[in-house]
């Protein structure tokens, strides 16, 4: 280990912490769960209303459940099922991403200003 190695490691760790900081600024509650397939908005689910929904993903149907102000993907076709393992999500900073299905569920606030900020 040389000195430059340690500087590089410290720099990378500091960079990752710095990149993480802006995420804590967005802690407000969202009002909608936006479902996008291939970046095209398919559904806008109100979080205050429980329900089960289905959307057509690339590899098949993706089941989305809204319950108790939170949204989750419950069933989908993908190799590792990352998005169903992720469980319920209610923070705008945490999207549910299912890349094999090209499906993304994000929590967003109600105002139009908020939408443009996130986009």
């Amino acid at each position, binding site marked *: *280990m040389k000195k*430059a*190695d340690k500087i590089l490691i410290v720099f990378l760790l500091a960079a*990752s912490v710095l990149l993480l900081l802006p995420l804590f600024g967005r802690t407000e509650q969202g009002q909608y769960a936006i479902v996008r397939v291939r970046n095209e908005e398919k559904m806008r689910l109100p979080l205050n209303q429980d329900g089960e929904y289905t959307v057509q993903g690339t590899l098949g149907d993706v089941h989305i459940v809204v319950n108790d102000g939170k949204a989750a993907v419950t069933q989908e076709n993908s190799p590792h099922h990352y998005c169903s*393992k992720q469980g319920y999500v209610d923070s705008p900073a945490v999207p549910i991403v299912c*890349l094999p299905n090209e499906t993304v569920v994000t929590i967003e606030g109600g105002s139009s200003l908020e939408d443009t900020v996130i986009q």
Partner: protein
Amino acid sequence: MTKGIHKITALSLLVAAGILMQIVESFFPIVMVIPGYKIGLANIAGLYALYAWGPKEMTVVTGLRVFIAALATGTLFSVSFILSLTGCTLSIITMTLAKRCGWFSIYGVSTAGAASHTLGQIIAICFIYQQFFMGLFLPALTALSVVSGLCIAWLTAKLLRRLSPKTKLA
């Protein structure tokens, strides 16, 4: 003549070992909060080639490894192949530069390679899927790439000490 044959054989063995590590590793995805994180054991082959021979040999070993592993798993020209390719291209460039400038030991070179591999993959994901908040995973993946970079460097240093003791690791 024998020296050339020796080198070709050694490089082919490295490629084969790299392919094996990549395929075996894909059987055991470390499912954590962060999707897509892997230690990247296959990079041992590339890093070994860089230190035992040079940048040219590393490019050959890593390039062939990515191509043949994709061929073997049937993911050739799929999204994961493109991600693998962009990550590897960027990490080959970074590791070559990091070794050339002479400031870093094997640990620094490997960590720089791992971090740039992560960066390349995130950029490729953002471009392919046009979903820029995939960048949200960047902080966690960068921090983890330091861990995997150090692991790979440690393993490769051990290998080099046994297989070609004359190599300078500094």
